[in-house]
């Protein structure tokens, strides 16, 4: 799996961090999401998929 995050679209809702803290964090200065693992380990894949489904700003895509 490959995760792509578009920081320009991100609104800092934090939804991805709740879904998948192994894969996403937020920048200290403005709360915009950062990608911790572009290729998540197998046990974090479902969380990353959920993050992509839930992201309100459509800023996350996953390629299987």
């Amino acid at each position, binding site marked *: 799996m490959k995760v792509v995050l578009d920081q320009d679209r991100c609104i*800092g809702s*934090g939804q991805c961090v709740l879904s998948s803290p192994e894969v996403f964090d937020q920048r200290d200065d403005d709360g915009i999401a950062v990608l911790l693992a572009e290729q998540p380990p197998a046990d974090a894949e479902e969380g990353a998929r959920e993050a992509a489904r839930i992201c309100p*700003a459509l800023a996350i895509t996953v390629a299987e």
Partner: protein
Amino acid sequence: MAEIVEELPTYPMSRGRCPFDPPPELDRLQDTEPLSRVKLWDGSTPWMVTRYDHSRQLLADPRISSDPRNDGFPFSNAAQSQNRGQFNAFIVRDDPDHAAQRRLVTADFMIKRVEAMRPRIQEITDGLIDDILAGPKPADLVETLALPLPSLVICELLGVPYADRTLFHRLGKTLLRRDNTAEQSRAASEELRAYLRDLVKRLDSAPDDALLSRLIVQQLRTGQMGIEDIVDMALLLLIAGHETTANMIALGTVALLEHPDQLAALRDTDDPKLVANAVEELLRYLTIVHNGRRRVALDDIEIGGRLIRKGDGVIVATEIANRDAEAFPDPDKLDIHRAARHHVAFGYGVHQCLGQPLARVELQVVYSTLYRRIPTLALAIPLDEVPFKHDMAIYGVHALPVTW
């Protein structure tokens, strides 16, 4: 044409017998005519969007505007219509202005910042419950817990004196009434703005570490924001920061008391994941923002075989989208074990709630504490005598007499 307009259902609609369920008419529209028209107070006939997938699609569409200065915007009442332009925070702006303003305050509400506040939120909650237990029975849960907790937390976060709560509670309540006249709304807004303007000036001469002072130092003093811009931001964060969570605490408690099996499961768990899940389910089930998400189309949009034309008003009724069986099987059932985090109770698209991480932690703390500390908690009046907020833009209860 006049005859057709006459037959359209009027929005907002009345709820049916169950105080937790959305109006039956919305349910009917979702089943039979998911993209239809409704009639508003001023005779305008915006689109009514009731399905979950349509709701998400439209709220995330950049051709849909939140800016009430655009022609065709579906106003909630005469007050909103006549006072447009008075309030100019990012929730009534589109990108790129919206994003630029929102990003100034996003960091304060991000997950790790809010998680760091959890011990303080727990401490406040414990103290308020101590006071309830030491006080007279029955107690009004709204006045003793639901309103004080989020008010205190947002005051500390913003740097607004909690001692001034009577003023901003009263004015916030007036601004959220569905049947406000333009005069009532303008007077309340002016009074609140005057208070906040004065506060901003005081903070400018003696800044602290809280959010408003940082905005003053970084934006006001550098000329990037004017004082009215700071007042807009303060007003938005202060009102949205307490009214919403307060209603979820009180209404959530009524819902749980009416679903004792769910309340027992929540009270008996030591699993923070189940508590967090219960919060998501209650957010979905109750969807307290029951005035629709109001938008206007900036371009023609094809959706579900219909054509929304440029300039058409659009109301996305997230209160019924969250009861769509396609997204939530057996949607009218409150089930704290179900997967519910994809709900749209916080909205969807770039305007999705800024304060959602804070609301979540506040609700997790309250729901995991209150029913354990007061296991015999019960309504002190019959359910049908509870004053539900049918008259407010945000649903909840005006008061909640409880005993134990």
